[in-house]
């Protein structure tokens, strides 16, 4: 996997995470250039369909980032994002998508070092996982146990 460069789609909320990403650039913090940023008005507007479509269109990882709980510009949009993310993670896991390809993070406007750290760790992790391929399904534990007896 020497030549593999991951493509990561990042949905960043306009009020916190996007500002952090902007500030990270202005402050010249070193970050891996594998991220395509999409600015959204709130992490709560990122429909699970966007995430699935990103994977289906060739993304190797998807990051959704919003304000810390309690700081949402729209009061509770990030909590909505959290509810969706938990359910979506469960669905992706059942379909056989590796953990770590989809992440929800809280990054405040002042936390540009944290933004850089999230991006870099995510890039490293996905580089380790390799390109996103059609999930091959899950080895069902119940089935495997039945076959052994």
């Amino acid at each position: 996997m020497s030549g593999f460069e991951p493509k990561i789609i990042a949905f960043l909320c306009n009020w916190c995470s996007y500002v952090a990403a902007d500030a990270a650039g202005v402050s010249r913090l070193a970050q891996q250039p594998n991220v395509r940023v999409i600015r959204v008005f709130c992490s709560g507007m990122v429909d699970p369909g966007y995430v699935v479509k990103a994977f289906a269109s060739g993304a190797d990882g998807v990051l959704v980032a919003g304000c810390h709980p309690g700081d949402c510009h729209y009061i509770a949009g990030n909590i909505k994002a959290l509810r969706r993310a938990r359910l979506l993670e469960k669905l992706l896991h059942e379909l056989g998508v590796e953990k770590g390809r989809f992440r929800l993070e809280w990054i405040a406007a002042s936390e540009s070092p944290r933004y850089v750290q999230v991006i870099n760790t995510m890039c490293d992790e996905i580089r380790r996982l390799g390109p996103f391929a059609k999930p091959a399904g899950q080895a069902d534990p119940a089935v495997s146990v039945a076959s052994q007896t």
Partner: protein
Amino acid sequence: MPKKTIAVHTATGCRTCELALLDIHYQVQRLHRLADIVYWPYLLGSQHTDLARLDAIDVCFFAGAVRTSGERRMAEQLRAKSRLLVALGACAGFGGMPGLANLVKETGPLQAAKSADAPLDPTLELPALEPQVASLTQVVAVDYVVPGCPPTQNLVWSALQAVLGEAGSQAHLSYAAGRLPKKVAQAMASGVPPPRGTVFAGEKAVCASCSRVKEQKRFESVKRPYQAYESTGRCLLEQGLVCSGIATREGCGGLCTGAGIPCRGCFGKPEAVYDPGAKMVAAISSTFDAEKPQKIDAVVEQFLDLAGTFYRYTLPTQCALLNIQEKG
């Protein structure tokens, strides 16, 4: 005008779609006047040799998913001989419940069966399993899809009328005009087959024809249909039941939800929905109210088998992640 010829075949399926073809009330008497049935193993005991003798068939109703090489050959043979090929039911149209096999890696019993010792009768040769379960629509070109598990009476009858080029009665025409896409209604009124690729169902989601009331209320905990809930009146999703209505094509008239059973999604997704699983995740997560991460996790933990529920009838065809083309 000579009568049209019909063939009916089921691959991997339960044959209820074949029964649905007969479950058309008194119209079943007219079926014989409209068409000659030339091949129907379930009803007439037709053999493969009967099919080999036929030169051409006007309309073939094919039910069931394609699981083995034998079924693939059968699908190709029927496609070659039929002027119109209709995918009947969710299995032929979208992969159906047999398609859920694609969720599981090939370990355990399936592999064991493949590598098992020779069959008891060595003259028998079992057809090989395909690597993945496919719908009929993924194997050959299909003219029409009649969705449902099984397709409902009215849809079966309107499909029969439309593909046999038989203008329907007033009552059926008004049904078609009210419930079915415009092109199907026009086809039925004119007696000309509808354009290729038509799905014999509505265009919106089941919620559009569901009789239940949405109150913008949130549920606290997930319920399953055997538990107590209000079987009349309120939206089932808002009561905590996993109802796939919002990610499912209408046309059934909300039969299940009307009887208090959550929608199971047998009509596949409407055109406007990108991925039924993602749509259901969005719908469910905006219908429960938990705010603390622990509480959210507790609710999410109560959902069982999300993939099997959201893609219950459509995994091989409509799950966006399992249908990714290999990167070139």
